[in-house]
């Protein structure tokens, strides 16, 4: 192949290879602002999620489906009145910072295990939508099953003594259980329920906060 021909191909690749789409600047900024400027009063007001508010009933229904599916809804709603477990509560607390995780009293081995678990779960949940859309979620679903087992072990361990961590683990148990269900139901609705649950419960921001808190400790 001549150099000119190769250069021509590379020019074509610049136009066609993973061609970037228009960036969702506003949506990204809302997330960045809420994560970077928590609890500070100056400047731009914290961003809300208007889209969520406009379809609250859909999200409430999705939460109920999730809860009923694994038989935990009533327990969650009763136990965590002060935590962001209730979808209605979450809708009214959109701009609140994620609760801090107190890890000082957690034994070091549990901190390490919890940190690793949270890190892996974050990676899985972030990549999941792409994997499902691409029809190759098998490995992810298997891994979600393993992480679900770890979640339940952590729930029964000193790692769950902190109320914020317990609430997070319980929400992750719900979400991971739903991911495991994708093994049998790979419909778009299944993934939508997971995404709704993640957003409603602010799972990803809480995961990141928890990882940061444990790392800082």
């Amino acid at each position, binding site marked *: *192949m001549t150099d000119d021909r190769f250069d021509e191909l590379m020019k074509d690749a*610049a*136009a066609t290879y993973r061609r970037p789409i228009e960036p969702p600047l506003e949506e990204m900024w809302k997330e960045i602002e809420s994560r*970077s400027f928590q609890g500070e009063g100056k400047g731009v007001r914290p961003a809300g999620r208007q889209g969520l508010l406009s379809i609250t009933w859909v999200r409430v229904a999705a939460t109920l489906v999730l809860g009923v599916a694994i038989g935990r809804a009533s327990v969650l709603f009763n136990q965590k009145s002060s935590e962001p477990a209730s979808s209605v509560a979450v809708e009214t607390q959109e701009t609140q910072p994620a609760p801090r995780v107190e890890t000082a009293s957690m034994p070091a081995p549990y901190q390490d295990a919890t940190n690793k678990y949270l890190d892996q779960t974050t990676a899985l949940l972030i*990549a999941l939508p*792409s*994997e499902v859309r*691409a029809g190759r979620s098998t490995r992810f679903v298997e891994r979600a099953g393993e992480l679900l087992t770890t979640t339940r072990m952590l729930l029964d361990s000193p790692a769950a003594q902190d109320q914020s961590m317990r609430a997070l683990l319980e929400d992750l148990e719900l979400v991971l259980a739903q991911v495991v269900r994708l093994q049998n139901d790979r419909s778009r609705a299944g993934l939508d329920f997971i995404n709704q649950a993640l957003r409603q419960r602010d799972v990803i921001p809480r995961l990141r906060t928890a990882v940061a808190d444990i790392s800082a400790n």
Partner: protein
Amino acid sequence: MTNTVVALQPKYRVTEPDLIARVVSGDRIAARDLYDAHAPRVYRLAFRLTGDAHLAREFTQDTFVRAFGQLARFRGDSALSTWLHRITVTVVANAMRKVKRFRERETDLEDVHPIGSEASGVDPVLRERLNRAISALPEIYRTTVIMHDLEGYTHTEIAEVLGVAEGTCKSRLSMARAQLRAALADLAPES
């Protein structure tokens, strides 16, 4: 520190060091200005490196959250854009390693996003082969090719972003191109 004037709306035209100082002091409007000036290119780079809109969005967000958290430590040895792109490449590389552990085949990444369809007279089979070959390159080569050949970064910029010597950058690009040509050899023989 460089005194680059950030391309903002006229009423906000300030030098980059001023803008950074305001962000560090907690000024969200300044943070938004800084974000507006740099986010499109950061997102573009993240998209090229991941091939996925969802991941590009996540990693762009992570880049700016990390950047705002560390901005007080930015010494201005390089341009802010270079510093941001360095964070982007690091964020993407670290996260993709975790993601790939769940994946059965790394080259599946290419399947995530459809190949563009701009008419350019290039044989679609050849284009597909080249795009897959780029995806299959080792990470350090792929990043260099994407930044230089696809996104138009200079060797100096890439060297700063990746923290390597300029010569290393040129060498990697040369190796990457050789691998790509080899991958196309049977479809477009040397003549």
